[in-house]
């Protein structure tokens, strides 16, 4: 067993371990990332640059940008559940114009490729955000199709393949950069959703957003969250997300970005083996603000342990276990 120097007590700024050279680069549909690690949208901000060497990450991802300002959901917005958390933040946004004016610069200064997450309450809104940000400094868009769509009675877009296809194709048409589509965890139809995104021109799909859930306070006889329901994330969802990544990778011919409960280099390996080309880290950032840099630091040793000197050689090499 390998013990990483990253586990030793130290304060931010102390040097990390030297590792044998391993090629950690991955190709995400024409976008070469220095390594497969990026934050999940909403679980990262330029504030984290105070706490970790952000330039070591494969990419950074912004909070989802909407066309207009929106306040987010009622409080309480977060609660802990066993091995995970539940949130109903509701994606507050200052709107695309304000993001362009004062938000994007903070990300652009981080010296890592910037993926802009875009949202919308209607098809036109997604297109408008893409259009208004098309000429800005960024590496890719990620379309958050898990937003409640007002044209479809609040249903999320990816429950309606035709609607999702329309949104994705419209964003692709307005962007010269790669377009990722972040899918919600539809347990039965993830492959179909990934294929729909691919056919509409997406460069990659991110699998997946948080899982719909609820927490109840029996003493108060109320929901724990002000919005009633929320999204479950953290270690508890890792097996669910791994299955969806596996299914999406089987169904689609475009790269998959895995997301769900990742907090160590060994988790990254599991997602790559299941078919992911890159990964997003979300909930783990809260308790360990340096976790993404630590995972990047541990990737070479992990690759060596698994017998490869190119991280990308792990992608999709999982086989189903046969009897020993």
């Amino acid at each position, binding site marked *: 067993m390998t013990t990483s120097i990253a586990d*030793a*007590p*130290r*304060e*931010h*700024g102390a040097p990390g371990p030297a590792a044998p050279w391993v090629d950690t680069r991955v190709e995400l549909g024409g976008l070469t990332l220095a390594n497969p690690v990026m934050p999940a949208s*909403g*679980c*990262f*901000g*330029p*504030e*984290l640059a*105070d*706490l970790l060497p952000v330039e070591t990450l494969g990419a950074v991802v912004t*909070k989802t940008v909407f066309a*207009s*300002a*929106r*306040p*987010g959901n*009622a*409080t*309480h*917005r*977060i*609660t*802990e559940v*066993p*091995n*995970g*958390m539940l*949130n109903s*933040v509701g994606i*507050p946004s*200052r709107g695309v114009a304000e993001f362009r004016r004062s938000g994007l610069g903070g990300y652009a200064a981080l010296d890592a490729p910037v993926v802009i997450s875009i949202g919308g309450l209607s098809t036109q809104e997604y297109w408008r955000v893409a259009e208004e940000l098309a000429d800005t400094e960024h590496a890719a868009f990620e379309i958050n199709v898990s937003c409640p769509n007002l044209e479809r009675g609040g249903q999320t877009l990816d429950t309606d393949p035709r609607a999702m296809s329309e949104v994705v194709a419209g964003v692709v048409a307005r962007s010269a950069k790669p377009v990722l589509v972040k899918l919600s965890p539809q347990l039965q139809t993830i492959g179909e959703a990934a294929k729909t995104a691919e056919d509409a021109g997406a460069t990659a799909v991110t699998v997946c957003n948080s899982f719909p859930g609820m927490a109840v306070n029996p003493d108060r006889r109320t929901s724990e969250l*002000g919005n009633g329901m929320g999204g479950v994330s*953290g*270690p508890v969802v890792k097996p669910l997300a791994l299955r969806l990544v596996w299914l999406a990778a089987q169904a689609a011919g475009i790269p998959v970005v895995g997301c769900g409960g990742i907090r160590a280099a060994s988790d990254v390996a599991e997602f790559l083996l299941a078919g992911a080309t890159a990964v997003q880290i979300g*909930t783990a*950032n*809260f*308790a*360990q*603000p*340096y976790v993404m840099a630590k995972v990047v630091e541990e990737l070479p040793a992990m690759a060596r342990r698994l017998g490869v000197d190119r991280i990308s050689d792990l992608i999709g090499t999982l086989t189903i276990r046969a009897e020993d």
Partner: protein
Amino acid sequence: MSSPATLGVLAGERPMPTWARTQVLVNRPLTDRYRLLRFRSATIAARAEAGQFVMLSPATESGPVLPRPMAIYTRDAGSGSVDIVYGVVGSGTKALAALEPGATVVVTGPLGRGFVVHEETGHVLLIGRGVGICAMTTVAQDLAGTGVRVSAVLSGRHESAIIGAEVFRGCHGDVRLATDADETSGVAVLRERLHRGFDGDPPQQILTSGSARLTRMSGELAARWHATVQVSIEAHMACGLGYCHGCAAGDGDGTHEAPLVCRDGPVFRLRG
């Protein structure tokens, strides 16, 4: 919690946080319901301003997923140690209570905007209840020996349940206790007592934490004495830095989000 319409964001620099995987030095009962945890971090001890907080969690694989926001109770730049006080109420604080000295915790801080004592202020009145008092002890630490007088009204269930009295006394504060046990903590009784005690010598600033009732009373007292009020509020948090937007101090105005407790607070100006 006060309604967001009454909260104003104080001017000030953004914090300069760091993180540390560091050792628990002390973890012991402080009162019947609260425990004191001391950890080592020279950087946080040196940088922490009065009223700021840290995010803290045990560095264990199976530990709580979310760190817990903890007011900095006292800090000692000399020894590089920081004290926090917590009640054991849920899974996260149960996990903290189980940590032995020498155990590793992950701490991020100092975070948030703390209390601001204005230059012209000669007398500060601190009004706190329960674990909320812990947000204000560092104010007394900083004002000790500066010539600014500190009066502290500390409220709790009974005398031995009150946190912080010895810290305020150690900083030469004028400490007055108000307890449920002797029926001196009710707002009507307390308000009357504070009128008698301070009408002839009113503070220029009231700082409060730990009770919505005491926050409202502080507003009334401030109007009477032409003083200003700052309030430290608590919220569920995930990131502690502002990027997760989990801790809005209310429901916003329909278009814009309410201030975030971690980034814009935890100390706010109470609007009159």
